[in-house]
């Protein structure tokens, strides 16, 4: 309301001002020199200077920042591949319970029985959902899950004496960027397979690529095109026949909850993005949680220590026989896991199936509403998201996917994902999720159509898109300049 821009907390700082206060301790007030050996004590001119503000200014600053920030709670967020569904407030409540939030991670099991039971229950639920037998809850996000999964793959092959011979992991060219990056970090070479005309994995190319040097394949199913991989059973047996394992990137699990399970498709390793499918809020970029579930063959390699039932209602920690070791400093993003547990309980089995149905219904409806206005590169029924293209629109009017996105911001919606997957030109990847109502979908589709029809109506309309957004806290941001003149800290700004 009125403010042109928000100064940084440093700009608001006044030396000597303060907000903090502490508990009265009654302890001796030793001085710093008495406590810290001289060689380590920071001399005055090395004091770490932080912003000094009053509690009042702290509040005003960060509250104003929130008024410069879009979020799921403000409206539709159809960002493809991200599953920006509504995050139930009950889960916030759960994560705020002090009996969970204030448990020290190294507290002995006698102090954390509730936590351990909950984690075990979550693991069991995730196994039921994915059709797997065991899971680690340690990975902090999808990418961490991927790398964990690849290390499990490696451990498996190594145990069979094929650790050094299997050097390649196959990924389709539609894959998310974390997949190839994880493959490299897992010590493998990426072997890319193409996409066939129906948007699926090119099966022949895949078969040609398979061989004794292949450790496995990473697949997202439904794919980043929003399409279910029709040949999944054939793919699975081909990879298995070649001695490889199938890794399931679970970022797109949402539309198959209760419909089909990765395990039943033939996958051996599955990561889940709890911050997508299970509604744990995204936090502006995290925290997430990326548990990895596996089939029987891989169980013994899981990271540990793992929460486990000890019998007679007690819980404790166990280390799998041939564990790859820990992948997190503690037990994973526990409060995120707690939220996911809550979400699963709130929905129940049937509820999760409805989630899948409505996510799929919404995406297909959206695709059909945009038909004729935007191009549909792979024209098949979709699952949770649809990828359309502004290619034709751009050719006709000069309004590109990016312009559509920016104009949407102005119309009160978040933009879809743009220019991904890379195999679609001028891609607009729209994932409405199941929590958006038909009315919201209708308004969103209306906005997409409006932008295109304005653009087609002539230069003014196209101009509006090029100039967008104008009603947002800032206008189109100069990204190139940010990279050219890097100012990543306040001290760099000053210098």
């Amino acid at each position, binding site marked *: 309301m009125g403010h042109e821009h928000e100064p940084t907390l440093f700009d608001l700082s006044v030396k000597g001002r303060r907000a903090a206060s502490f508990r009265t301790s009654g302890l001796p007030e030793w001085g710093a020199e008495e406590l810290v050996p001289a060689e380590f004590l920071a001399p005055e001119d090395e004091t770490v200077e932080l912003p000094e503000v009053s509690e009042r200014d702290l509040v005003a600053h960060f509250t104003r920042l929130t008024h410069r920030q879009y979020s799921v709670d403000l409206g539709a967020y159809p960002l493809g591949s991200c599953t920006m569904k509504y995050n139930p407030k009950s889960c916030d409540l759960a994560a705020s319970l002090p009996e969970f939030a204030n448990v020290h991670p190294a507290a002995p099991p006698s102090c954390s029985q509730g936590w351990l039971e909950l984690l075990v229950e979550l693991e069991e639920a995730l196994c039921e959902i994915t059709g797997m037998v065991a899971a680690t809850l340690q990975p902090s996000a999808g990418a961490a899950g991927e790398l964990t999964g690849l290390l499990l793959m490696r451990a498996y092959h190594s145990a069979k004496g094929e650790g050094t011979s299997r050097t390649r992991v196959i990924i389709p060219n539609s894959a998310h960027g974390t997949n190839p990056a994880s493959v490299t970090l897992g010590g493998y070479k990426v072997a890319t397979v193409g996409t066939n005309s129906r948007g699926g994995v090119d099966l022949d190319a895949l078969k040609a690529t398979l061989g004794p040097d292949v450790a496995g394949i990473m697949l997202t199913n439904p794919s980043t095109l929003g399409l279910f991989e029709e040949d999944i059973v054939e793919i699975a047996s081909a990879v298995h026949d070649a001695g490889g394992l199938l890794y399931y990137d679970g970022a797109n699990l949402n539309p198959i909850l209760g419909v089909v399970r990765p395990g039943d498709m033939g996958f051996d390793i599955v990561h889940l993005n709890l911050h997508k499918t299970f509604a744990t809020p995204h936090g502006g970029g995290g925290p997430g949680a990326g548990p990895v579930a596996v089939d029987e063959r891989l169980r013994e390699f899981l990271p540990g220590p793992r929460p486990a039932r000890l019998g007679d209602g007690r819980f404790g920690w166990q280390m799998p026989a041939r564990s790859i070791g820990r992948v*997190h400093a503690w037990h994973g993003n526990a409060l995120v896991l707690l939220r996911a547990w809550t979400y699963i309980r709130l929905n129940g089995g049937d509820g999760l199936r409805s989630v899948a149905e409505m996510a799929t219904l919404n995406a297909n409806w959206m695709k059909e509403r945009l038909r004729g206005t935007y191009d549909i590169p792979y024209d098949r029924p979709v699952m949770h998201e649809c990828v359309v293209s502004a290619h034709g629109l751009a050719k006709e009017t000069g309004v590109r996917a990016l312009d559509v996105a920016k104009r949407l911001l102005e119309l009160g919606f978040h933009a879809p994902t743009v220019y991904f997957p890379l195999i679609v030109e001028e891609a607009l990847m729209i994932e409405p999720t199941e929590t958006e109502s038909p009315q919201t979908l209708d308004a969103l589709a209306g906005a997409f159509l409006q932008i295109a029809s304005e653009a087609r109506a002539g230069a003014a309309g196209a101009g509006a898109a090029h100039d967008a957004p104008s009603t947002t806290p800032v206008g189109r941001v100069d990204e190139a300049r940010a990279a050219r003149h890097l100012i990543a800290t306040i001290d760099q700004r000053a210098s």
Partner: protein
Amino acid sequence: MSAPFVPHTDEEIAEMLAFLGLESLDDLFSTVPEAIRLAGGLDLPPAASEADVVGRLSELAERNRPAGSRLVCFAGAGAYDHEVPAVVRSLASRSEFVTAYTPYQPEVAQGVLQAIFEYQSMVARLAGLEIANGSLYDGAAALVEAANLAAAATGHQRLLCSAGVNPRWRQAVRTFSAGSGHALEVVPLAADGTTAWPSPEEADGDVGAVVIGYPNFLGCMEDIAPARALADATGARLIVAFDPVASGLLRTPGAMGADMAVGEGQAFGTALSFGGPYLGLFTCHLSDVRRLPGRLVGETVDRDGRPAYVTTLRTREQDIRRERASSNVCTNQTLMAVTAAIQLGWLGTTGLREVALRSARATRYLRESLLSLPGVTAAASAPVVREFAVRTPLPATALVERLVEDGFLAGVPVTEGFEGTEFEETLLMTATERRTKEEIDAFAASFEKAIHR
């Protein structure tokens, strides 16, 4: 109630299906081969109301013992019971921060972007280095990424890591080395609790990174100079795993010669949380910025010249660089970074110093109280500031269990990563600014009884 968060009414579903020319919801899944479709639904409990789920959670909650007035916390080891004021919780839980995605559309994400910029600015100062990224998963992940950066930058895969570095972080490095191919060599601690570094000659050859804890896991203050010298001699990057709270008193890692500093940021506004979500701090010199893992926010302008923020140097990242990216991180821990920015803003220069100072005082008082008890000795002789380990007549694991009965979380037994060393089953302890003399006195009394029971 079968799907509490799905808004569609039956009529609406029917209309939408009709629009799509479908007869039933099952038809939506026509592309899923029949053979693999799940028959009979998921074997999970049915949907439950918030009240019922909260009821169940309360039952589970009763089986936890959180840190608080009924379980006074002297445990640390990378997870600290620091003050989190109401104002920080209240601001960090604003739903615009909580329910936003990664700021891909800067025009509607200035709130998160600016908060990250401020976070980066503060963390860089805490580390005494020029650049901090927008967060990583936790301290362990930050160390792993630092090792990767060091290896990539130097071209050397050998990592010389002090045994004084948090053993759980060391283990994470080891776990991921299976993929990256790094060779992790753990350099043992001497009896005084500081690292027994090899001489450059002993180190024998090229090294990618030398890693040291500051203070180290046992709380010991280690001179960084030998590690720096070793790094210089072997062509390695020096990675300092630092305690960011201690930067309120200590010279920063940067001032001590670090090339990279990594740490755990939980102490800044995040609850103990049974270990997560926490906050991986990652800092380095500007010269390494093009290999920086994860997100980086930069200041720029919008089309009208107004100040604006945006994620920058994006070409480093996995979504663009794919298999050639140096890191695979995508989702990070932004909310914790925002929280840390708020908490650090709450603390300010003097508050940070006070937390460090008050914690050091409480720790000193705790240590002196315990060392005055018969049978209790210091596990290491090097100076300590924030944390320390003691040797007691009975193993730490058993002692901790006993003291829980009296309402104290006595500390963290030194086990994982110290197997077979003289420090195994010593007890690692700390006292933050939240501990009072009264609490410590009561604890010392219980402690004495427990070790002699």
